[in-house]
């Protein structure tokens, strides 16, 4: 049984490899590598969702939020420090305000527990929250104004630490894990579709915060030009050794430089992906993994065996979200910029879900396969759709309808993804590579 499944996996991975290599031959190696890089990141995100859904049956549709937090980590770790932002009335005061806000909420929660049965419990807790909110705003608002006034055209935010961007990857994971802890603490006790709505909402709020809190990561003014972990194309082209080597090889130095950069990214990402696959496989096949699956398959009996279901769910939720945050930091590294308005739930949450369902929930390799396959399709459906519509409209007279259809080709991808999800869910509900 295992052997046939391994063979099936090998065949399917080979087929996906053919898709990518075919792209290299038909279109260009630059395109193929671009798709591959995002494919690697998508595979990591799918792995994160698979940890939550496949191992534990947690329905998280807030992937976008965790991804964006990873992106925020990249900005906070790697962008250049802003001079004067961390003054006593600026950055530190913001931090103080945030701590006070957190303390207010913590106090409210403690009071709520302490005052059990007290007549005025609601009133007291509400007044603590209201007073805390106004104090928070009184400290927070002037500090934000101070920070945002510093050279607003270029910075106007608290800036970063100026550290190598690779360090941002684990930090992105930690940031996402922290958010997941808060969400998990409040929402994991709810039933599956309530958890879904809760995570959907939190993800939207994270994006709104990124868009509107200019002091944090410049909001919709975007952060561009983040440092890279790999060399720049222009530097390679200016490097005599590189140009000579490429010319001896018979390659055009300009194309070769951009391929080298993309390959370097691909290698970095592959290392992370392989490490994660190894870790998740080990975890899944350990006693811990068996316990998690036992909980998923029958919560009541697992609880009767003395397993702490809530604690395990929280753990899984944090782990999966951390993986998504890591992938988000990697994505921002690849793009070298953080553009909050590009985060859309269809692309960053639901597409990842299509990957996991199509690939095979509960199977790490399946999720990775789904990541590569669906990402390739997501990119290629557009040119393929255009080709298809060109075929359909070839006989049509030039006019309004033809122009409209050609414009609409861009929207083929949503339709295709939905159809793929529905077909797989209907006819092969366990995905391409089912759980063993």
């Amino acid at each position: 049984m295992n052997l046939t499944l391994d063979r099936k996996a090998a065949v399917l991975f080979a087929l996906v490899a053919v898709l990518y290599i075919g792209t290299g031959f038909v279109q260009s190696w630059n395109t193929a590598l671009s798709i591959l890089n995002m494919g690697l990141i998508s595979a990591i995100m799918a792995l994160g969702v698979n940890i939550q859904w496949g191992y534990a049956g947690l329905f998280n549709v807030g992937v976008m939020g965790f991804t964006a937090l990873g992106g925020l980590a990249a900005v906070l770790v790697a962008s250049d420090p802003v001079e004067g932002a961390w003054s006593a009335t600026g950055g530190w005061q913001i931090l103080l305000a945030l701590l006070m806000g957190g303390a207010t909420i913590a106090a409210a929660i403690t009071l709520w527990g302490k005052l059990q049965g007290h007549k005025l419990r609601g009133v007291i807790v509400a007044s603590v929250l209201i007073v805390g909110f106004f104090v928070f705003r009184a400290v927070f608002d002037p500090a934000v104004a101070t920070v945002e006034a510093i050279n607003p055209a270029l910075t106007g935010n608290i800036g970063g630490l100026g550290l190598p961007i690779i360090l941002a990857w684990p930090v992105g994971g930690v940031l996402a894990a922290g958010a997941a802890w808060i969400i998990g603490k409040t929402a994991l006790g709810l039933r599956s579709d309530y958890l879904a709505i809760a995570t959907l909402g939190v993800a939207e709020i994270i994006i709104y915060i990124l868009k509107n809190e200019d002091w944090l990561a410049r909001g919709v003014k975007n952060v561009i030009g983040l440092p890279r972990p790999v060399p720049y194309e222009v530097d390679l082209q200016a490097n005599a050794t590189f140009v000579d080597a490429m010319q001896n090889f018979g390659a055009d130095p300009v194309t070769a430089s951009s391929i080298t950069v993309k390959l370097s990214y691909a290698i970095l990402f592959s290392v992370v992906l392989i490490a994660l696959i190894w870790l998740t496989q080990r975890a899944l096949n350990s006693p811990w993994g068996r316990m998690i699956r036992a909980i998923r398959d029958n919560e009541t009996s697992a609880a009767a065996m003395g397993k702490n279901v809530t604690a395990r769910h929280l753990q899984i939720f944090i782990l999966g979200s951390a993986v998504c945050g890591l992938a988000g930091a990697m994505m921002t590294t690849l793009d070298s910029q953080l553009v909050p308005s590009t985060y859309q739930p269809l692309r960053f949450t639901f597409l990842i879900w299509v990957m996991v369902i199509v690939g095979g929930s509960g199977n790490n390799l399946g999720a990775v396969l789904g990541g590569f396959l669906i990402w390739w399709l997501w990119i290629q459906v557009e040119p393929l759709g255009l080709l298809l519509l060109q075929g359909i409209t070839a006989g049509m007279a030039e006019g309004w309808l033809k122009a409209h259809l050609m414009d609409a080709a861009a929207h083929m991808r949503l339709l295709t993804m939905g159809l793929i999800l529905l077909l797989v869910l209907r006819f092969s509900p366990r995905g391409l590579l089912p759980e063993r």
Partner: protein
Amino acid sequence: MDFLNAIIALLNFVIVPATAYGAQLALGALGVTLIYGILRFSNFAHGDTMAFGTMITILATWGLQSLGVTAGPLPTALIALPLGIAATAALAVGTDKLVYRFYRQTKAKPVIFVIASIGVMFVMNGIVRFVIGVGDQNFADGTRFLISARDFREVTGLDEGLAIRTTQAITVAVAILAVVALFWFLNKTRTGKSMRAFSDNEDLALLSGINPERVVFITWLIVAALATTAGVLYGLDKSFKPFTYFQLLLPIFAAAIVGGLGNPLGAILGGFLIAYSEIAVTYAFRKVVGYLGPEGWSPEGMLQLLSTDYKFAVSFTILLIVLLFKPTGIMKGKSV
């Protein structure tokens, strides 16, 4: 102290817009809650169902306008609405036959239905973008204002104007009609009673000879009508943009859950609660408080609790509070 002007300012900027928005949310939440009650899953495709119905209505409106047919002072879209409802009903029933029925027959877990509805959401979203594009469409015509701010000022002699747009008045009127019709149907007709029975206790309903497929069929018809009406009213009041409709999913779900999933009365209550809090928390009360204070005095700052960009956060916070402290909602809903 200037009470009258303060009240008018409050009416103009908070109460009137929030009432219209609340009516739209309530209609949307009614659709979500009916599906939850009868089919027992949270329909993620609801926002896109609204978008689809609105799109058909817009196309029909354009068709009518090009034929020279208008509704006079009322928006033409009201004439086109039945066509939009019919098309959406056909789509909803077709989707049920193609997608959801299979999972009903295999008695799949609710979460599988939700994932299927995500697939449906993708497809519907794709169709809408394919046909009408992603841009903003403004399709309101007819008289713009029922009462314009200037007329109001001239008639009453107050400093503050009160404007009520035709679309706002229509929204509330249509919503009341739709809700009355729905409740009459659910409480007085045989089919409506069988739907409620099915929602209360499926096994018992089946034993008493209620045909489940018929109940589901009728449910989709009603949901399509509610979703299209909600979508068209929202589009008339603001404007139509596919992505906005997708985002409406969050306040609509919040309204349905806050009111108690599966409870129609709760959905209406939830819709208005969410709408009033969203607008009240993000409105700058400077003007209103200024009127209430002594002559010539004006408060420092905007007196705005949160910037308007966070209005979704407001609905979400209310949702979270209700989920934590009263998971079945204000009016008792169900949890599967």
